[in-house]
């Protein structure tokens, strides 16, 4: 069957589906569920989503696309006021959690030992648990070294949570300043200077 659906109905259906779904919906998700049987072309669906984004541009909520698909979120400018709806929400994360997450995000796949080497401190199980429980990271394999430690990588949920479509949308890492030790000089002078 290939039922007809007009542009207004199509937009309403896509809009309602994204608002009603409990997770982001990709184009494929939409095609295989609410649009199943309507034979809506890829282009027509993209146009509809673009049109919806435009419709909501000046509103209190916006349609955004992240790694897992489309969803409506509230305008970031309103967050301070909206936070009053949940007096004790908005979890804060410790630097240890954020540094570990940053290392997994930029260096994935990475073992816990490698994270510890770079941070210079041990990474507590509590930290890994926090990241795993939030579904931000997962074990994607095991390194073939003694102990076969798990290799961690970030998930789609991580990207969704931070409003990203791809990992390459992460802020670029600052460049290392080249180590410019002039060995001959420094070795001689260091001793004298200090």
């Amino acid at each position: 069957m290939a039922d007809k659906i007009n542009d207004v109905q199509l937009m309403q259906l896509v809009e309602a589906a994204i608002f009603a779904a409990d997770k982001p919906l990709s184009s494929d998700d939409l095609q295989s569920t609410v649009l199943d049987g309507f034979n809506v072309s890829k282009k027509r669906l993209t146009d509809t989503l673009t049109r919806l984004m435009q419709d909501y541009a000046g509103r209190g909520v916006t349609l955004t696309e992240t790694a897992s698909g489309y969803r409506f979120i509230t305008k970031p400018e309103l967050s301070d006021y909206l936070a009053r709806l949940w007096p004790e929400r908005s979890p804060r994360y410790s630097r240890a959690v954020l540094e570990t997450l940053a290392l997994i995000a930029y260096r994935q796949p990475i073992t816990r030992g490698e994270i510890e080497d770079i941070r210079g401190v041990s990474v507590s199980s509590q930290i890994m648990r926090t990241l795993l429980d939030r579904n931000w990271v997962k074990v994607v394999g095991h390194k073939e070294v003694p102990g076969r430690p798990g290799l961690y990588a970030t998930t789609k949920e991580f990207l969704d949570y931070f409003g990203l479509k791809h990992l390459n949308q992460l802020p670029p890492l600052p460049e290392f300043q080249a180590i410019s030790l002039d060995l001959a000089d420094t070795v001689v002078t260091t001793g004298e200077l200090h």
Partner: protein
Amino acid sequence: MSDIISDSLTIQQPLPLAFVRGEAVLDRPEDLYIPPDALEILLDAFEGPLDFLLYLIRKHKFDIVDLPVNEITLQYMEYIDLMQGLNFELAAEYLVMAAMLAEIKSRLLLPRHTEAEDEEADPRAELIRRLQEYEVFKQAATELDSLPRDERDHFNATAVLADNFAPLLILPDVDLAELTLALKDIVKRAKDFQHHHIKREHLSTRERMSRILDLLSQHNGYLAFSGCFEVTEGREGVVVTFLAILELTKEKLVEIIQVEAYGQIHVKLKAGEA
């Protein structure tokens, strides 16, 4: 804990560290002065020795790539000693770093042969590399934290489903073989308690009976006898229909009515059935 400390201190044996320690409290630069009772809190604010070293380097406006080992080691040891003196539980990583700094410092003091220099890396290089790498990710973590994120900068906007919403029910699949299997079971059971008639009534008649009843229902239970037949079905079809009507009559499901001789014959569902 104190054993580890004395171990790490022995490495620095050639340095007049004891003397420095004696002067430490008085000589501490003002911007680095931290009241002892705040030390523990301070240490909690650092993510380990690399973080702490970076803090010292930045405070002194040193350049990492030009790591002034003497200065840094001096500062680092002062804090470590102070904390040891106050009986703070120091994480092992801090002590390992103290040992490493002492070692670098001592290696730098050793006289070297010029020919060997090319092969021998600067003892500071590895620490500098680690400090740089750590600083990169320290900054990356800060940037990650500043990205707009769920539950803090934006919230999911959702709508509830209308009252008439009902989830799609996926009905179970049935295979034709399951039907015949079910029937075989019935037959098997029935054989056990039924007397046997031989009966060779074909399905077509039963199906046609259903169809005629259905047809009658659609016509308010009353239809011309000829209306029950589909001439295009041919002779066989007509015969099946005829037998079906007879069977329906026999089962008292329909009546055949003829008001006058040679008049129109009608088939009627029994008892005002519509």
